[in-house]
């Protein structure tokens, strides 16, 4: 029995942390600042799709994701996770936690044991663990399972985390910046593995990343967080309808752009690419074709940067403009 892909709902979720000094594994003391990580987040996460969770550093992405896996619980508000009508509080709920796999950048491994021992632990607890897939992925990522995590490079350690995320086959799989330290070939192999496994074993995948250009092709839904609030939560299609790009000779592009709000501009010699807000009308599309200007879809990264940039020229934040 494998349950249907899990979805989630958050209502008015607030998470506050107090200041804390803690010791890391290598014995150094680190101070975590006090603050509000999430501030009134209300959000639906659709089951059965790949959702990109985007935001700048400190936006609250990791905190949001840890709530879904019951690593944390909200200070205020409610979190519900599950399949169909069975949405439940994940905190201390084995039905939910056994069906949700969160992989953090650290990989959450047993540092003093071989990677193979950590995998045995996961295999015992994860009801749908695919040992063959785990073995194949470690081979793909060139990770020796007989090594201890402390003997692995950051990229290899991330690859171990990525392997856990995929091999667990959890109905809700959460990958929180697991790409860190991976080289480009490994990252692209990882993205391909996500898509292949997702196609074969449909489930809900939440993917948090700063490498927006690399991963946007995976997303069916997108959530953008900024300073603990949800700026945007919609399908990738809806998001793409928020703007478009024009690429071609400067004069032609300037003419077509007219008075539209510009999200991004990039110039290379006589060619310019501008990203504009809104959808192109039929006349614009025809004029672009006639002028030899290429009409493209909205790059998610441009929208993301625009939404989360601290201050606009007119004194308003990106978030205020959007709202």
């Amino acid at each position: 029995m494998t349950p249907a892909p899990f979805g989630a709902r958050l209502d008015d979720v607030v998470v506050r942390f107090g200041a804390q000094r803690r010791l890391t594994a290598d014995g150094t003391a680190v101070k975590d600042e006090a603050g509000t990580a999430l501030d009134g987040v209300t959000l639906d996460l659709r089951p059965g799709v790949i959702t990109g969770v985007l935001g700048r550093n400190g936006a609250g992405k990791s905190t949001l994701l840890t709530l879904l896996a019951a690593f944390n619980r909200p200070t205020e508000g409610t979190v519900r996770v599950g399949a169909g009508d069975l949405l439940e509080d994940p905190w201390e709920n084995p039905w939910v936690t056994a069906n949700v796999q969160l992989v953090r950048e650290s990989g959450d491994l047993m540092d003093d044991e071989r990677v193979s021992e950590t995998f045995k632990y996961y295999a015992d607890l994860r009801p749908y663990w695919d040992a063959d897939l785990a073995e194949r992925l470690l081979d793909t990522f060139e990770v020796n399972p007989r090594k201890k995590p402390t003997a692995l490079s950051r990229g290899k350690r991330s690859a171990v985390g990525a392997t856990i995320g995929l091999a667990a086959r959890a109905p809700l799989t959460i990958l929180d910046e697991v790409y860190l330290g991976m080289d480009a070939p490994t990252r692209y192999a990882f993205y391909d593995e996500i898509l292949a496994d997702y196609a074969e074993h449909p489930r809900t995948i939440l993917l948090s990343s700063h490498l927006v250009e690399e991963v946007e092709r995976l997303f069916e839904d997108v959530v953008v967080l900024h300073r603990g609030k949800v700026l945007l939560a919609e399908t990738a299609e809806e998001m793409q309808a928020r703007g478009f790009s024009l690429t071609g000779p400067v004069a032609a592009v300037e003419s077509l752009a007219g008075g539209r709000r510009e999200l991004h501009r990039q110039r290379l010699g006589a060619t310019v690419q501008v990203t504009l807000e809104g959808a192109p009308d039929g006349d614009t599309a025809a004029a672009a074709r006639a002028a030899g200007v290429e009409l493209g879809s909205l790059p998610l990264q441009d929208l993301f940067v625009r939404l989360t940039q601290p201050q606009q020229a007119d004194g308003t934040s990106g978030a205020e403009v959007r709202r």
Partner: protein
Amino acid sequence: MTATTVTRAERDTFAARVHARAVRRVARYVGSVTLVIGAVFWGIFLVVTVAVPLIVRQAGGVMGGGAMTGAEYAAPWFALSLGTIALATVVVPHLAAGGTRRSMFVGALVAALVAGVAYGVAAMLLLLVERSLFGALGWEWEQLGSGLDAGDAWLVVSGAGTAIGVAVYMLVGMAAQATYRTNGVWRGTALLLPGLALLVLVDHATRSGAFADALGGLGLVGDQPAGAGLLLALVVLALAAAWLWWQLRVLRLRPTR
């Protein structure tokens, strides 16, 4: 893998099954760490218990008490260290692998009880070995360590005292680890005090260990009947279990970036 809609009954069965598996896994991991490394510990003390009297005899000396008392003092602290390390190793992967804090607690409790019984039995065997060796050497043997008034049942009472003491120390060690994770350095250190009080209490109850010696040295305690002492020790064991659960149930893994 075909995704299906799950009924409430199926959900409950699934949850019970994964909980049981998680408990077994924690118990197996923490238990095996404490038993395997504990076997080395007791093996070393077996060698010491036998070798020291033979060396003393070879040198023409006579011993008033055996070396085994060192194990009785060291075993609980050894268990505390192992408990701290084992929980530090397993707690985050356990939660990441879908285990709950409750399954962590139950598994850790089972492991502590198993380790306590195993260490208690090992202590009894070493006491017997030491007494036999002293007899063979023609020396008079006197048990050091436990001060419970047990009469003929001294061996069982010693073993039981060691077992309960080891389990309490181990649970307190694990609780300290969980405390630091949730509360950080300063509050975590302050919250060591309740655990420390439990260690003092169990030493006092079993009349063994460094704290019992310290209290005895201050003239604060006298002899105690074995039954009453072990009963009090069991109450402390229950309190130590409650203290570990209290720390684990609020354990939060805060994002670290």
